[in-house]
């Protein structure tokens, strides 16, 4: 008769199908994309973009685990994307800071003087 701890351990050790990871990643991506579209605060938009990029990383690592013959390409691809995401946030926050210095707001809708 296995105790509750063994049951939890068994569940954690059992094989989660690839689809499970892909669905979680797709949901994460959708949440990020939805937030990036509806939120008006530039900093929150960047956090949403980060969620989207981390969904990508989850997908990649899941594929890398599922495709052992791919020779670690998935993991190195994920590492590349982590680096890129960090660089993007660095540039992004610098621009948001520049906006805040000149306008005292980071609301995307208020930063809209050019049209046409």
């Amino acid at each position: 008769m296995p105790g509750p701890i063994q049951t939890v351990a068994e569940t954690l050790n059992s094989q989660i199908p690839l689809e499970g990871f892909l669905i979680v990643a797709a949901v994460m991506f959708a949440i990020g994309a939805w937030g990036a579209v509806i939120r008006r605060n530039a900093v929150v938009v960047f956090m949403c973009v980060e969620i989207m990029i981390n969904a990508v990383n989850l997908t990649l690592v899941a594929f890398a685990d599922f495709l052992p013959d791919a020779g670690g390409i998935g993991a190195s691809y994920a590492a590349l994307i982590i680096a890129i995401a960090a660089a993007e946030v660095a540039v992004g926050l610098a621009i948001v800071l520049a906006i805040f210095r000149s306008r005292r707001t980071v609301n995307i809708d208020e930063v809209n003087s050019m049209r046409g």
Partner: protein
Amino acid sequence: MSAPIFFLQSMDGMGMDGGMNMGRDLPLVAPEIAVLLTAVGTLVFEMVRLPRVALPFTVVGLLVATSLTIPLVGTETTVFMDTFRVDALGVWAKLILLPATALCAVLAYPEVKDTDREGTVYALFSFTAIGTLALAGAGDVMFLVLGVLLSSLGSFALVAYPRDDRATEAAMKYLVFGSVTSAAMIFGLTFWFGASGSTLLSELGGVGEMPLAATAGLVAVLVGLGYKASVAPFHFWAPDAYDGGPLAVAAFLSVVPKVGAILALAQVVRFLPESTGWPLAIAALAALSMTYGNFAALVQENVVRLLAYSSIAQSGYFLLGVAAFGGSELAVSSLVVFAAAYAAMNIGAFTIVAVAGRDLRDFAGVGRSAPVLGAAMVVFLVSLVGIPPVAGFFGKFLLFGAAIEGGFVWLAVVAILNSVLSLGVYLRVIVPMYRATKPRATPVSVPAIGAVWMIALFLTVAIGVAAQALIGNIV
């Protein structure tokens, strides 16, 4: 399911090479290394408080990189285990985009000299150029991702450089749009990796059997590269980014990343099975981009925004060559010739705007008060329309030929109708220039800007004259 076979093949390839052969590969990417050293060197001059050296160093470095590319003409090979291609598209991209970057750096000089961190601008031009070169030679999905992001990050910073209200606003819009679209691109592209088990574009043949994954990747590539090339409907950032930032940056963004992204798209579809429906998807984007760009340009009062929409239309013409890539021998040479012509004429047109002014009214009477400048603008605009004998005509002529050869006769007809429509767009600038009104002020070019538009003028005419010889070299 044939995926395991693809894994085995890719493993075999790695085994045979025994990893990378640096001695062979590094000379083949010497131009990229030269550009990287140029960018870093420019930053060093900035740090040691020698900003005056930064511009000459950048221009010389980019020209050295261009001359390092010349021996590579005619090479058809791959480096770094097939991940980067040194072929006609990649090599000609360097020959076209590196001098174009140098011209933009010179064009930026009067706008940024004696400002805080002048050298950074030139370094950012070079870094962004490396990103577009990574795109133009991409043989691997990771190079696509790296190229799009590297060229985007540099471009965001370039647009924001003046740090005034307009520039930061433009950079913010560009940044929000760009980061969301690139995240979408990266997400879709992971499914190509999942389907083929490899990130190499040359192994994409297998994804045709998994239509859902193939479609996800194709949509992702079209969104990501379409945003980089400002193809409608992914163009929203372009008019604001061009108008908000310095004009040199607008000239740069309208040429260098755009050409890089278009060539990257060609590198992708080269290996993509036609069952994914890419030729039709790209043809549809081409038609939409041309038509939308020209109609939107018809109602602009600001010449920078007019040229921005015109560059969206020009991306549509570029896509003709990509759509025909599977079925036409002409596709590569048409893309290269039009890229060269487009780089010369578009940088030229933006340079004249930098002299005359951003508003359409600034051009009133320019043709009379500054006849040479006015004539140059007429040549650039006529070339953008595609009227012989200047460069734009030969580029478009080859693109239309490639489209017809590739079986897209309807697309060629749409493109020709759009050329007629675009005449109306550019006449809106040309006609006031020669109307007998009193000019506001005689536009005077400072030496650096004068040199840029004269070089662009020379190239626009010379490419038109030499087009025939150029075509012989590419094929």
